[in-house]
């Protein structure tokens, strides 16, 4: 049974740099104003390393891993 984690985001820290959408486009795309739309649900295992890169690459450290269905 694999760990099921999701991508959480602090919407106040997020400044719309868009680095995350570059690094893990499988689950993040940008809206009309450059802010991330994160696909809901567990991060697919194949994409997890890229998600980790996106988390450490975020200039404002707005992204984090969280348990699936964590209360926002």
């Amino acid at each position, binding site marked *: 049974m694999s760990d099921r984690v999701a991508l959480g985001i602090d*919407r*106040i820290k*997020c400044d*719309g740099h868009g680095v995350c959408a570059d690094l893990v486009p499988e689950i993040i795309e940008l*809206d009309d*104003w450059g*802010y991330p739309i994160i696909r809901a649900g567990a991060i697919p295992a194949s994409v997890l390393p890229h998600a980790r890169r996106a988390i450490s690459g975020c200039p404002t450290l707005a992204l984090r891993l969280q348990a699936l269905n964590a209360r926002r």
Partner: protein
Amino acid sequence: MSIALLAGPPPAQGMERRAEHQHRLGALPLRQPSLIDSIERSGLRGKGGAGFPVATKWRSVASQRAGTPVVLANGGEGEPLSRKDRMLMEQRPHLVIDGAVLAADTVGADEIVLYVGADHTGAIQAMLRALSERPATERARLRLVSAPVRYVSGEETAAVHFINAGIALPTSIPPRPFERGIDGRPTLVQNVETLAHVALIARFGDEWFRSLGAGTASGSTLVTVGGAVPQTVLIEIPQGLALSEAVNAAGGITSDSDAVLLGGYFGGWVESTTAWGLPLDADSLRQLGYSLGCGVIAVLPSGRCGVVETARILAYLAHESARQCGPCTFGLRAISAAAGRVAGLTATHGDLEHIQRWAGLLKGRGACRHPDGAAGLLASALRVFADEFMIHYDHRRCSITNVAAAAS
């Protein structure tokens, strides 16, 4: 109609003083070991708009290990159509303070903050006078804080942030206030009406509270009725009462009406034919897909266009955004601009499609629920006023006010 909270001296006599309050209701029953259980049996839910079960919230705070809890009695009332919190504090401040003291007693808090909007001077005066009438042991733990009145300033993290940092804007969660709030301590943020209900449940019991409701609903609730009624009034109703009955109690409608705004700007439009029969009970409404929110009922008068009113509300919500999150700041601004154009009969091609697409990008993409509320209001408007939106957009005409755009 004054069942429980508003029972007692009529509002014309101003606030109820402590002597009369004690005489009418008896002493405050402190140190009840099973108050939380009683509240749970009563079915009391928060009256701030979210409707969260009160007993659950108190247990969450009481079980935190990180510091002594604080109670924040939330009378911020940022919703412009709502009057209940300020008027309750003006008329029955001791009920509110009783509830806050009971809450502090139960969860082990040593500090109580009474959070009131700075513009609500009547409420502030009444609460301050009531504070001066409380025993010294309570006064030592109580303080009143007045905050700027903005739409989001009553949000629980915004209230906490104002106490901590002087700015009434929401903060990101986690942590929620019940975990870490004022000074990093577990904070119980509870609406003032909820606390007033607690003050009565503690005296008269959960069965008494349940019996106040109509049908299977429990308890009473405060609603602000406005719009096509003789004047905006605050009334207390049994939960489960039909909306039409509540409007009748408020004086009845003064014109025909096609739609009702239920729950305030955070709620949504309902076509009147459906609205009249809705039971004003938070649980039932939620199951039906509506929301009682903070108890606002605004009846759209005939001659007022739902598209125009919606555009006005959206402009207000966009203006009141805390501007901390991109999707809310820019999404609401774009939606409001496009809706304004549609309402003003100057829509450009694609405006309606853009509105719908942008509305889909609001839910869950802010730190607080402000964009979600706006999205909900907009969705209800697009449904209830679907025809009128099309007439405004396609034909540049308002069929309600009979205004047509100048031919271009």
